[in-house]
């Protein structure tokens, strides 16, 4: 057994100098900083009200429902089921997504596909968004690229728990409004 060497890092705490310890000059510095922001933004807001300098933003706020933000292309948003060329779901009801789902919010009922080359198809495909944690495992598990999370619909809300449940029709043809630029 060798001796345990604990590596320590000595952190140099910044010492306050005389003027900083007086406190009053620092108060003035702080008030100066915040009031420059105040007057700059006030002037900009006044100019915006007159229709001038609209390019220069007076606030970093994005006023969401009216003003949208560019979502990153990788962001996971509400699910959708992709379709084949004839419009039928690409899903083969292999249950991979239902199995991998950590929130157990996917419910698939399978049935036989009329085409002998395809084994199964979903009779119903339901996602309970009230339980979904938006982890994206279902998308990664899918061998058929049948489920994607790229609708850019992010304002999912309902007045009841049942309202949060999406059925196969909704998943194939999302009716929500994409909220992005």
């Amino acid at each position: 057994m060798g001796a345990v060497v604990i590596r320590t890092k000595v952190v140099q705490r910044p010492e306050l100098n005389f003027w900083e310890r007086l406190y009053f000059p620092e108060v003035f510095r702080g008030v100066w900083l915040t009031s420059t922001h105040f007057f700059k933004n006030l002037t900009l807001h006044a100019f915006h009200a007159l229709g001038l300098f609209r390019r220069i933003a007076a606030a970093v706020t994005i006023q969401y429902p009216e003003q949208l933000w560019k979502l990153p292309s990788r962001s996971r948003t509400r699910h959708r089921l992709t379709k084949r060329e004839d419009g039928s779901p690409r899903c083969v009801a292999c249950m991979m997504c239902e199995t991998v789902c950590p929130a157990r919010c996917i419910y698939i009922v399978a049935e036989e596909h009329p085409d002998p080359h395809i084994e199964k198809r979903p009779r119903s495909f339901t996602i309970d968004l009230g339980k979904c944690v938006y982890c994206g495992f279902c998308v990664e598990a899918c061998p058929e690229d049948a489920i994607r999370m790229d609708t850019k619909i992010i304002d999912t809300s309902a007045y009841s728990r049942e309202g949060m449940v999406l059925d196969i029709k909704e998943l194939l043809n999302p009716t929500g409004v994409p909220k992005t630029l």
Partner: protein
Amino acid sequence: MILTIGIQAILAVIMISFVFSLAALHTWIERKQSALMQDRIGANRAWIRLPWWWARPINWLLQPFNVLGLFHPIADAIKMFMKEDYIPPASNKFLHTLAPCLSLFFALVGFAAIPFGNTIAIGGHVINLQVANINVALLYIFAMASMGVYGVVLGGFSSNNNYAVLGGLRASAQMLSYEIVIGLTIMGIVMIYGSLNLQELVRAQGSYLFGWIPLWGVLLQPVGFLLFLAAGIAETKRIPYDAPEGESEIVGYFVEYSGMKFGMFFFTDYLETIMIACLATTLFFGGWQVPYLAASGFLFPWGAALALPPLAVSLLQILSFILKVLFFCWLFMTIRWTLPRFRYDQLLRLGWHYMFPLALANLFITAVIVLWVLS
């Protein structure tokens, strides 16, 4: 007799409506100013828009208020009045109800002694623009301000909540410590101008140094002014001196209050801020004095003169008072949104170890100079 009472009543109504509307507006100022200081927009979602086609012109008039968020104070008031007024079962119900009333009452009565203008002559009556012309107005105001601590202490004590008691104790210790500093800084001004009457104090600030520098209190007592400002903010129990409230540690003396009773405590904070702004204006920034404005109009030091009717002079003076008060309200709000809270021990050490000796030294030096000038 009846006329005098009537005039005083009208003055009181004017003063109280000014103070109340400014205090209600403070909620809006607080939201919007903090937003602008932090590059945000601030509350702007309380809209009033009438659905009928014939209400279009009214909607057009309401639109600026909507966009600026000026209906939020009304929304606040509605919320405060509609909320359940919960009185904790284990509390002392009488004191619990009395405390916010005491707080609000003592914060309001102080405004009676604030002069907001010079005398004004209307129809042969000379009206002093001050609700109550008290000879010892300064003492009266500070008496009322110190009574205000009873509301806070009772609120904390009667709630039967440890955190509320802690908040009340902190508040009383803090207000006692800082009242001493305020009293000492005020004494400097009183010694220089030789009066406790606020109207007299303001009139005395109308003279000029070398004929062109307005001899306001801030020029004669710069250290006293800074100390007064610092201690005055402590009196209002707002950040950086909000240890009694301490939103993030103990919620403070009003933790057991809800609805309009909480609203009254909230309102008291704003009223005290306005009170300190009024006092700073009156004592250190010449009250209603406008530089170079005499009773007959502007008399500039370079010899130019601009005659004005007496009414215009009075209105200018009132406007000057309001602008100065608004400036101080802005300053207090800026400080409130700039500095972090003092720890409780830092707060008392600042009061007793630094500000109290400084105020004493300031008082002593002022006394020596006043004696030297007089002799």
